[in-house]
């Protein structure tokens, strides 16, 4: 008997082909798939409401086989179940979300808390103001609350620290402030361009990442094979987005250790990259660049020459500054052994992207489930092993250089741009589709289900931050509270991508 169906990244399958299990088998089979297999992890686990019941879909990626195993199970809304998270902690957030949306309860969930206070949550009595924070009764310990409005120009979230003097014992992060109801809006908005703009707005710092996931998924649902020009556009834009944001992150890291020179130089070095995006598509953060089935901005030899000019000016200055930063004892002493998340911990939490690669966990969709032109790039993920701020800084330094290399190779072979008008795309009825993209933060997963009329019935978005916020909370334990900002910046997680 097949417990699941195996699909590839960006493959659509008829809904009826996904095996349906009893909950007991569903739990056992998925947990055993993951047991002692570091090359497998859950990329999405969510509910799809059908009347009084909810159909659960579990998607387990196998990085060695380049497959995703999808299985399903129908339970009643409000049912009381045994949790996956008791056996595999990486499921904890997914199950909390299923509880929040459908009222499913778990008997043995280790950390049963609200997720984002979605507007359509079941229990309206649960509100932002009565989040059940973990507390410790002690005369010696004190609590520090930070946010939702933070000191800088950044997004809102609430951090609650329990400290022993200057030392952090525990951090709990409350999110949900950014909730805009985006998954529901995907169903309400009927035109493709509206949905594309929604995808661009999931996380404005990952415009290319999320819009590429949406475009790849929509084309798959509509059985449309995008030409090489679109594959080229998306791959190139993903790598440019990575270079730009990593450079900005290096600036932010320098800011938080009060290293003014690094902060200013990396800050100004981000500008030519995002200004180049504007030269290409009219928007510094690449909004409007990625479209389903077409592009409004054909890439030409002129663009390639301009990009080579930009890199010719960028690279010497970047190399000079990054070399200096990594030789500066006062910087290194702040980076090294600060905010450590061990290999065992990242496996337990199930982190993705940089937050996995920092601690020896090889998770990179570009290699394991290649999309767009990544199968033509011989991608080698940058892996570090210390799991500290230093490792996360190193990854950025090396990925910037690696991405520049990829971009230079890509623009040596510019395809002919023919996809300039919008094709007629009709999603097929009763389908399930899944799309994985390696954004600069890590793995982005979008899933969609269509109904009998071919209309969108479910749209499910998972930003890498969904997994990684817990790693930040873990990283600051036993660190000084004054090191929290640098730990936070070194992860640079998304609030809006999490809150949706």
């Amino acid at each position, binding site marked *: 008997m097949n417990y699941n169906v195996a699909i590839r990244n960006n493959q659509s399958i008829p809904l009826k082909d996904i095996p349906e299990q009893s909950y007991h088998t569903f739990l056992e089979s998925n947990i055993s798939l993951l047991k002692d297999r570091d090359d497998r992890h859950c990329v999405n686990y969510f509910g799809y409401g059908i009347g009084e019941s909810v159909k659960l879909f579990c998607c387990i990626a196998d990085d060695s086989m380049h497959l995703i195993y999808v299985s399903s199970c129908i339970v009643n809304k409000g049912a009381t179940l045994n949790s996956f998270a008791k056996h595999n902690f990486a499921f904890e957030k997914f199950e909390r979300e299923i509880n929040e949306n459908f009222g499913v309860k778990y008997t043995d969930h280790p950390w049963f808390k609200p997720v984002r*206070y*979605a*507007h*359509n949550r079941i229990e309206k009595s649960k509100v*932002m*103001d009565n989040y059940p924070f973990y507390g410790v009764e002690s005369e010696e310990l004190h609590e520090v609350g930070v946010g939702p*409005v933070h000191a*800088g*120009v*950044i*997004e*809102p979230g609430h951090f609650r620290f329990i400290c022993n003097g200057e030392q952090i014992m525990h951090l709990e992060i409350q999110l*949900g*402030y*950014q*909730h*805009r*109801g*985006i998954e*529901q*809006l995907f169903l*309400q*908005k009927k*035109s493709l*361009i*509206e949905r594309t*703009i929604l995808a661009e*707005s*999931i*996380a*404005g*710092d990952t*415009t290319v990442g999320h819009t590429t996931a949406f475009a790849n998924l929509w084309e798959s649902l509509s059985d449309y094979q995008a030409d090489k020009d679109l594959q080229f556009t998306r791959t190139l834009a993903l790598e440019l987005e990575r270079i730009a944001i990593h450079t900005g992150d290096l600036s932010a890291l320098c800011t938080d250790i009060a290293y003014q*020179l690094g902060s*200013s*130089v990396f*800050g*100004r070095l981000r*500008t030519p990259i995002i*200004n180049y995006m*504007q*030269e*290409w*598509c*009219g*928007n*510094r*953060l690449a*909004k*409007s660049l990625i479209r389903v089935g077409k592009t*409004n901005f054909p890439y030409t030899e002129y663009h390639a020459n301009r990009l080579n000019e930009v890199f010719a000016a960028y690279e*010497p*200055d970047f190399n*000079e*500054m990054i070399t*200096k930063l990594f030789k500066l004892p006062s910087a290194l002493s702040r980076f090294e052994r600060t905010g450590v998340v061990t290999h065992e911990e990242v496996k337990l939490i199930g982190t993705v992207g940089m937050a996995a690669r920092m601690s020896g966990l090889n998770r990179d969709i570009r290699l394991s489930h290649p999309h767009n032109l990544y199968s033509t790039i011989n991608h080698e993920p940058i892996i570090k092993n210390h799991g500290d701020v230093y490792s996360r800084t190193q990854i950025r330094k090396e990925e910037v250089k690696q991405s520049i290399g990829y971009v230079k190779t890509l623009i040596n072979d510019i395809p002919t741009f023919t996809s300039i008008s919008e094709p007629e795309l009709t999603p097929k009825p009763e389908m399930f589709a899944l799309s994985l993209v390696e954004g600069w933060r890590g793995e982005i997963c979008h899933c969609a289900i269509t109904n009998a009329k071919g209309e969108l019935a479910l749209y499910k978005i998972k930003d890498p931050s969904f997994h990684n916020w817990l790693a930040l909370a873990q990283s600051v334990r036993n660190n000084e509270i004054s090191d929290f900002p640098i730990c936070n910046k070194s992860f640079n997680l*998304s*609030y*809006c991508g999490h*809150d949706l």
Partner: protein
Amino acid sequence: MFDNLKILYHQGKQFIPNVKTVEVPGIFRGRPVISNAKVDEQALKAVCPLGAIDVNPVRLNLGKCNFCGECAFKFQSKIEFTKDYKISSNKPEGLIVTEGEDKPIILDESLIRPEIRKLFSGSLKLRQVSAAGDNSCELELNASGNVQFDMGRFGIEFVASPRHADGVVITGPISQNMAAALQITYDAIPEPKIIILAGVDAISGGIFANSPALDRSFIDRYKPDLYIPGNPVHPLTFINGVLCLLGK
């Protein structure tokens, strides 16, 4: 020491000498110009995903515009986005561009409260609140203070505490979950204070306009002093908008 001097020397001059006249690179989509060309107006109206286009006469509301350029691609003879980044106004009507008109967008001087220029023209400290913003406007507001755009040279800065601020800059469509925090922040700013809405999401809700997860009652309770369109706002749009408000 010599390393640092070398690095400094290699940066050259990064700052933009004149942020009011500098030309932006490439194909920036700023203030649109709508020609008198005859097109299928209903089709034109329908092409806009955010309902920013109205007809008879054809008008484009920059407070609702995503600057995606779809209308200009499909109706090239009718709509053209220029590189004019000075597109802020201090009243919603000021953001409406009508066909046949090609004139700069300016502030209505009569609406500017006298205390704003009297008190803030030398120094304006702002508290930014991201109320479900997608972090694109936030990135651009941060960029406004970097060594290139350097709005600090005009005495304009973002500060950490609302108690130190002269006004609030709101980004994002204002979610229910953030409405209370926005109100508390605003209340903590001493009088007199200004309100700036930055980006399409803050001005009109943008693509989220009708989402049940929003609570935009703050905008109904208070009158914003400045509307800065864009998705995201360009740093030059932001700086020029604020400078106009301050009369600088």
